[in-house]
Every structure is written in C-alpha cells, then in structure tokens.
C-alpha cells in the first residue's frame, strides 16, 4: 500500500508537532545546562519554572492537533457510513488513519518524555539551590507506555503488509485478506498494550519502593520540610491525574465494546445484487462466477409462465437452451486449453411456478451445464454497540443489515445420462434427489441445503414430474 496522501489537517499537525518537539528539546537542553550549573556552583539562584511551564502548556496544542487529525479522518468515515457523502470516502478516511496513528502517538510520547525530563531537572536544580526533598520519581511510569508506542508501529506495518498482499486479488479474497490483517494487527497491538500495562505497574511498584527507602534513610528530619503549598499542589496534581484517567476510561468504553464484539464473516458484497425473492436460506457453498440464470414468476396470467434472464438479459424460455449453447461454445473457443466446468448460477424466485423451474433446469442440463449452483439470499441483521447501520430517518440508529448470497451445488442427471452410464445415478456419486418428490422450489431448496450441510454431494434427477 502506498502511503495515502491527504490526511486531514496533516500539514497543521506536522507543523505543530515539529514546533512543539523543538520547544521541548530546547527546554530540556536549557534544563540540563542549568542543572549542571547549580550542581557545580554553590549559591546559584533558584531557577524559574517558567520555561518548563511553557513547554508543558505546548503539549496541549500538540495533543489537540493529533487527536483532531484522527477525529477528522473518522468523521469522513462516519459521514460516508451515514451516506452523507460518497461511500468510497469511507475507504479514504480509514486508510489515512493507518500511517497517521504511529506519527501522532510517537510525537505525543516523545514530547511528553522530553517535557518530564526538563521539568524534573528544573525541580531538582531548585531543590539543590534552596534545599528540600528530591523531586518525585512518579513520572517515571510514563516510560511504561513505550511498548504500546512500538505496538502502534507494528500495527501499522501489519496492516500495510495486509493491504499490499491483498492488492490485485478478487474482491472477496481482497476484503478477507485485509480483515485478517486488521484482526492480526489488533491482536498484536493488544499484546504490546498488555506489556505496557505490566511495565507501568512494575515502574510504579519500583517508584514506591524507592520512595519508602528514601524516607527510611532520611528519617524524620525531613518530614516537615515541605510546606502546605507543596502538599496542596501535590494533591491537586493527583486529582487532575485521576480525573483525566477517568475521562480516558469512559472515552474508551464505546470503542472497547465495538472492538470486543466479533464481526460476522466477510462475504463477497458484489453478490448482494442477488434477487431478494430467492429462498431465504443459508447455503453451505460459496457462489462461484458462472453464467447467471434468473427465474422470476410471470408478470401476468398469460404465457410465458415465468420470466427468465440470462446474465441480466431477458430471454424467451424456448431460447434459453440456444443462448446457453452459445455461451458454452464461446467459452471453448476462448479457452481451448481449459476444461469447461458446466457451472451456472441459478437464482430462482420462491414464487416461480415449479413446473417452469423444472423446464429451466432441463434446458440448463441440455445445454451442457450439468452443475448448477442454486443461489439463496439470506437477510442478516447485526446489532453493533457503536457502528450502526444507515437509518433513512436520520440518526444512524439502525442495526446493520445485509443480504448474504450463498448456494448449494448439485449435479443434474436425466434418463439419457442414466441409460448411457448404465447406472441409476448416471455414475455420479452422492445423495439422489428426484425433482418429482417436491411441489415447490422452496421445499426442494431446503432438502438440497440439508443434504449439502450433512456433507453429501447431491445428484438431482430430472425425471418427469408426477
């Protein structure tokens, strides 16, 4: 996958992050120089906290710019899902997030660490100049986020690899490969985040152990050396930290619910055009590309008693055999070295007269297509915590809905096949089903699905109806 251009507010984020990182580096250099000066020179003046303060305030626009970039990309996606903009914009909005995340997270992490370093050195220099306790070691827990930052880069690499590997493959395979990469990347990221959780915990325990040891060594002499303002400041920092933590936990709740709920298997959405009057069944076979024969109920009470389409063109029932013959000959002419598989996709309406369906199946067989795939369309509804379906009334509160096209594959045989093979099943192995056993297509379709679900091949006998 080439790096997608057009990250929303990408240039603004680049400018802000470079400026803030430069400021944080400058603040750290100044803090190091001052800290060294105070360390070696007795009676040095107490340092001001102005520069670390400015550097800390500069983190706010950096965080806002990074979050704004991702939020803008996600707005594009959600608007496309709500059909407020072109559906393909969803793809753009998603793919631009992939390279943006590592940059945003790394910029935040680097700037945060630089600021903590500068602040700590300045506080330590002030302590050396005027006495008192050493600055707290607590900020060291920020280092524990490093595995997650590495994990975000790994997440990006897996997703980019997935897109590259899927490029040029048919839509169904492409989407499945990309989704597999996305799931793998998500699991890897979760592993890195889990590692961060334990690193943060270990660093916190280490900081607490050092704290207790330092107090044991210094004894009660320093106990009251800090004034009330310092304590109030410490408690204020604790309160702010806990409040921000609560906001982050609550903010992640809906995304967490969405991330934890598995998605239904992907399928070839290109087949969603399938006629929705086909039986509402879940066939065990995937539909393979082949000529498509649609059979609809008659438009009126006058003949013909069904309407037939071949590859989206209306054909008269009597000419279906000829049209299919032409297709078969054309295939053989164009692919002289490829074995003709005799497959056809039969999309048959539940309402089509059964006798007409039998006639169509005979025509398909007689034209040299003995392997029809009976296609079905199943309506699926999936309730999601956050990513809901398009709601025409507005608000996007609907469940996700789609039609899933599946099939059962059978082999057609007639009396001539049986006579020629001198076998009741014309030499074809599998469960034998007689068309004459049924009165409706839906009943036939259910039987075929049951047999295929039981793992049996199905042979459909075209004998005359009773």
């Amino acid at each position, binding site marked *: 996958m080439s790096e997608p251009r057009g990250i929303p507010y990408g240039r603004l984020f680049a400018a802000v992050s470079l400026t803030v990182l430069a400021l944080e580096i400058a603040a750290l250099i100044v803090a190091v120089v001052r800290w060294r000066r105070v360390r070696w020179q007795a009676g040095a003046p107490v340092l001001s906290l102005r520069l670390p303060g400015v550097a800390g305030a500069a983190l706010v626009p950096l965080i806002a710019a990074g979050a704004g970039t991702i939020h803008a990309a996600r707005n594009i996606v959600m608007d496309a899902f709500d059909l407020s903009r072109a559906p393909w914009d969803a793809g753009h*909005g998603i793919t631009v997030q992939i390279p943006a995340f590592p940059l945003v997270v790394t910029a935040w992490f680097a700037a945060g660490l630089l600021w903590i370093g500068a602040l700590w050195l300045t506080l330590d220099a002030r302590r050396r100049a005027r006495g008192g306790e050493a600055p*707290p070691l607590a900020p060291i827990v920020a280092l524990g*986020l490093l595995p997650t930052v590495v994990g975000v880069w790994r997440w990006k690499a897996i997703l980019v690899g997935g897109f590259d590997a899927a490029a040029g493959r048919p839509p169904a395979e492409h989407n499945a490969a990309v989704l597999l990469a996305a799931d793998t990347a998500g699991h890897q990221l979760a592993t890195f985040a889990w590692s961060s959780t334990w690193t943060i915990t270990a660093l916190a325990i280490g900081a607490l152990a050092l704290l207790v040891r330092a107090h044991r060594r210094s004894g009660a002499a320093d106990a*009251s050396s800090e004034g009330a303002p310092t304590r109030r400041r410490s408690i204020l920092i*604790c309160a702010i*930290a806990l409040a921000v933590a609560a906001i*982050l936990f609550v903010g992640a709740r809906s995304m967490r619910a969405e991330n934890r709920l598995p998605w239904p298997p992907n399928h070839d959405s290109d087949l969603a055009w399938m006629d929705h009057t086909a039986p509402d069944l879940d066939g065990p076979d995937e539909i393979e590309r082949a000529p498509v024969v649609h059979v609809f109920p008659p438009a009126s009470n006058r003949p013909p008693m069904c309407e037939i389409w071949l590859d989206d063109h209306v054909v008269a029932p009597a000419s279906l055999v000829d049209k299919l013959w032409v297709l078969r000959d054309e295939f053989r002419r164009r692919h002289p070295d490829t074995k003709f598989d005799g497959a056809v996709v039969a999309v048959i309406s539940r309402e089509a007269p059964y006798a007409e369906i039998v006639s169509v199946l005979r025509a398909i067989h007689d034209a040299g297509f003995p392997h029809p795939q009976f296609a079905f369309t199943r309506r699926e509804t999936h309730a999601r915590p956050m990513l809901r379906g398009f709601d025409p009334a507005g608000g996007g509160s609907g469940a996700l809905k789609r039609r899933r096209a599946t099939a059962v594959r059978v082999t057609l045989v007639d009396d001539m096949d049986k006579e020629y093979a001198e076998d009741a099943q014309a030499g074809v192995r599998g469960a034998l089903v007689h068309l004459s056993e049924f009165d409706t297509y839906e009943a036939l379709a259910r039987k075929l699905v049951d047999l295929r679900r039981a793992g049996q091949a199905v042979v459909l006998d075209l004998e005359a109806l009773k």
Partner: protein
Amino acid sequence: MKQATRIGEKALLVVSLATLALAANHFLLHWVAFTGALLHRWFFGV
C-alpha cells in the same frame, strides 16, 4: 506521623500518575484498534 503522611502523599502521586498512564494505555489501545472495526464496517457494506 507527619512522615507517614508525607510518604502517603508521595505514594498517592505515584498511584495517581500510574492510573493515568494505565488509562492512557487503555485509551490508545482501543482508539487505534477501532480502525480495524471501521474496516469491518466498511467491508460489511453501506
């Protein structure tokens, strides 16, 4: 007593900042991983 209070205050700071780091880690994980859910939603169909 004052020393114990002081240690308690510092320990509270460590625990608070660790909680903040854990929350940030939790948020980052689900914020980034949500892109995968968007991909699933995209391929599900509009």
